[in-house]
């Protein structure tokens, strides 16, 4: 394990951008506006800026942590073993892996739920989810390069699709909706920031994939660019929703981004939300793929099992979870559970590990 990972399996630093971008921008970009605007109203964009800034700090911390490890072992499995000992480390690793599996499952299930609600209200869920699971298996079993490739395609499609839609929306925006500026108390902004943080997670995939990035020193800027552009996309989605809908309207909308897009009429197409939601399949596939790849790979490091067996087990777990999580309330519960763990993971676990790294560094020097 001491020698570097073969070039056959790694990707160049620019692909870190695609992977992180795709992990952060998930389906909540179509729906997060209501929750964030609930407390902060037209000042919701301030809370996005706050979360944006904090994410940059987190990424900076993660890079500090990772660059102090042996490049081949720079992932959370080895770090936990080194910092917390054999038993506690294994427990934490198992917990983090479960978190990644849960992330992937929530993304997968919410996407299917969105299709069920918005496109095919009478559809039976099982056939489509089985095809989806086969597709996920096919993608993840292709290895890290395939997953990274999917992230690239997903990003590519998002970039092709969304900017033109945004341009088409411009005539319908009402800039005066943003006024008055700073009309909310710091407490309200913080509350809404917390809501935003619940939707803006995913940067932690870095802890799982770092050894598979070539020339790691150059990759940090791509990670920051990914955070920046993902946050920009959230910001644009927020501002567009604020400018397009009145606030009392926004409080009642579950899918504000989709609703805004759905009003557009092109000469050949209307109801573009169908297109957006269908395309989002590829995005979901990519981010589920990243999560499951990390889980399978980390399980291999943890228990020395074969990654393909891990994948099969995890996908069976998906099917079992789907048996239990049926109605929308349960899905929301699962999502809340997952996002809360995510926030603790990002804002408590990472700083702790960061401090340990810094302390160890100091001691090893002195």
């Amino acid at each position, binding site marked *: 394990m001491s020698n570097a990972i073969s070039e056959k399996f790694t*990707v*160049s630093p*620019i*692909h870190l951008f695609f992977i992180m971008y795709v992990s952060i921008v998930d389906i909540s970009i179509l729906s997060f506006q209501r929750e964030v605007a609930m407390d902060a109203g037209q000042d919701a964009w301030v809370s996005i800026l706050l979360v944006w800034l904090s994410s940059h700090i987190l990424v900076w911390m993660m890079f500090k942590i990772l660059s102090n490890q042996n490049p081949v072992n720079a992932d959370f499995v080895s770090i936990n073993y080194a910092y917390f000992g054999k038993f506690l480390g294994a427990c934490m690793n198992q917990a983090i892996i479960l978190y990644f599996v849960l992330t992937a499952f929530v993304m997968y299930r919410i996407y299917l739920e969105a*299709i069920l609600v918005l*496109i*095919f209200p009478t*559809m039976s869920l099982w*056939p*489509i989810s089985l*095809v*989806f699971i086969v*597709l996920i298996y*096919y*993608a993840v079993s*292709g290895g890290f*390069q*395939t997953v*990274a*490739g*999917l992230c*690239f*395609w997903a990003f*590519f499609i998002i970039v092709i699709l969304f900017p033109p839609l945004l341009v088409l929306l411009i005539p319908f925006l009402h800039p005066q909706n943003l006024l008055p500026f700073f009309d909310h108390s710091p407490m309200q902004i913080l509350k809404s920031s917390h809501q935003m943080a619940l939707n803006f997670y995913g940067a932690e995939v870095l802890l799982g994939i770092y050894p598979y990035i070539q020339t790691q020193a150059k990759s940090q800027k791509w990670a920051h660019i990914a955070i920046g552009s993902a946050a920009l996309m959230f910001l644009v989605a927020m501002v567009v929703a604020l400018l397009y809908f009145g606030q009392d309207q926004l409080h009642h909308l579950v899918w504000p981004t989709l609703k805004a897009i759905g009003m557009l*009429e*092109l*000469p*050949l*197409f*209307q*109801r573009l939300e*169908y*297109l957006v*939601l*269908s*395309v989002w*399949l*590829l995005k979901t*596939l990519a981010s589920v793929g990243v999560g499951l790849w990390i889980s399978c790979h980390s399980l291999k490091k943890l228990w020395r099992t074969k990654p393909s067996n891990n994948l099969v087990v995890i996908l069976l777990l998906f099917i079992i979870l789907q048996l239990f999580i049926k109605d929308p309330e349960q899905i929301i519960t699962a999502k809340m559970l997952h996002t809360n763990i995510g926030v603790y993971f990002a804002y408590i676990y990472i700083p702790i590990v960061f401090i340990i790294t810094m302390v160890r560094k100091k001691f090893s020097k002195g």
Partner: protein
Amino acid sequence: MSVDAKNLEQLLSMSQQSGDFATNTLSFTQPPLKISYYKTLIDGKLLQQHFMSALQNHNEIELQRLEDIRAFLPIDGIEITDKIDVIQSKLLKGHAIVQWNELDPTCALVPLASKDGIRKTNETENEFSILGPKVGFVEDLDTNLHLLRSQMNVPNLIAKELMIGSISKSKVMILYLDGVTNNENIAKVEKRLSAIDMDVIFDTLLLDQLIADNSLSPFPLFIATERRDRVIYSLLLGQVAIISEGSPYFVTGPSTLFDFFVSPEDYYLPWVLGSFFRAIRIFGVIFSLFASAMYVAITTYHYEVIPRDLLVRLIYSRQNVPFPPVLEVMVLETTVEFLREAGARLPSRIGQTLGVVGGIILGTAAVEAALTSNILIIIVSLSALASFVTPIYKMSSTIRFLRFPIILLADFWGSVGIFFGVGFLLVHITRLRSLGYPYTVPMYPLRLKDFSDSFVRSSLQITNMRPSYLKPVSNIRYRPKKVNKKSDFNEE
């Protein structure tokens, strides 16, 4: 099963079972030489005019040893050997065996091969282009190499020879530019080719499948071409070309998905037009893949996607059709495939008639009988047309095949189903490797430097570097002239 003869005696007795095998003992030489050959493989004129007459004229010279015939036979390339495998293969490639006497295992092999029955020249028929040279390859390996070497006048164009096929014993050539092509690629091709166990190599296209990285994929992993300019272009970029004896097709690799949208014609047009036509091809392929599937998805599930005015036309054209959209599309798509398949098997004149009968009469009748909507006829024929825009025939077959599963997925889950199809396709092409190189380069893995000649064809000023993903030994193809600083208008 071993078909090789153990010794000369066995070889001759095996050959004598064939009616076209001739063995003569020459009465006019001293001692009487014994010659054997396949009448059908040798050139009779050569035999009579050169071989026989030379032997007759030099009758008075004493033949001491078999080697002496080299001295007076006006034929180059005579080989004297007692190795049975060499004798067998040469005999079957049109050499005559000359024996000192019946019991002597040493033979002189006189090349008298005939080139009858082989096309001398070829206009590119299947990869037609309006501009540019129309030189295509033929079934004869020597002619093909001649064609290549006449435009590549460098000694570092290397043709490595291999023998493949337990029955056909075909000569297979691996061509590359020494000092340009990465040695790893050459070694990989050579290793895969020598691992092949096959009886007859009918065509290079067979080798293409045998050395492919993934034999389950519908996508072609190597470019097969009969055009000289395309092969030369591949060699220049640092790819490896393979050709087998008896095939007019070269196979070049490693290839990427975007190579299949490149036509040599792009380079004979100004780069703006070249890029435009390349973009048209890519759009055509995407249209061809998804047009019928979108029709199915929209008419089955998403009527509201179509604006009202257009929807009126659509419903009006479909109102009398008694089938569900997917059946309608499948029947029509299959009909188009029938037409194409039948057209490809028929002589060209009948093929034209068929096109008229099939395309025009059948189409009109089907609409009038209300078996299909005329909007669908437009979509299906357009997408059939669009599938042929790729310059490489194999790719267009792939695209026409892939339409069917996507149509079925569209019938199951509408637009989401189509994107399931896209998902499977994307995962598949991302997983594909051609000679170990990613298939979707330069898109993924992203190599911005190689964009200059991929889905756009940039100006020759920019495309002077070889694509980096091929890891060529030398990167620079040519050095473009530096453009002088542009002067402002009306100024010197």
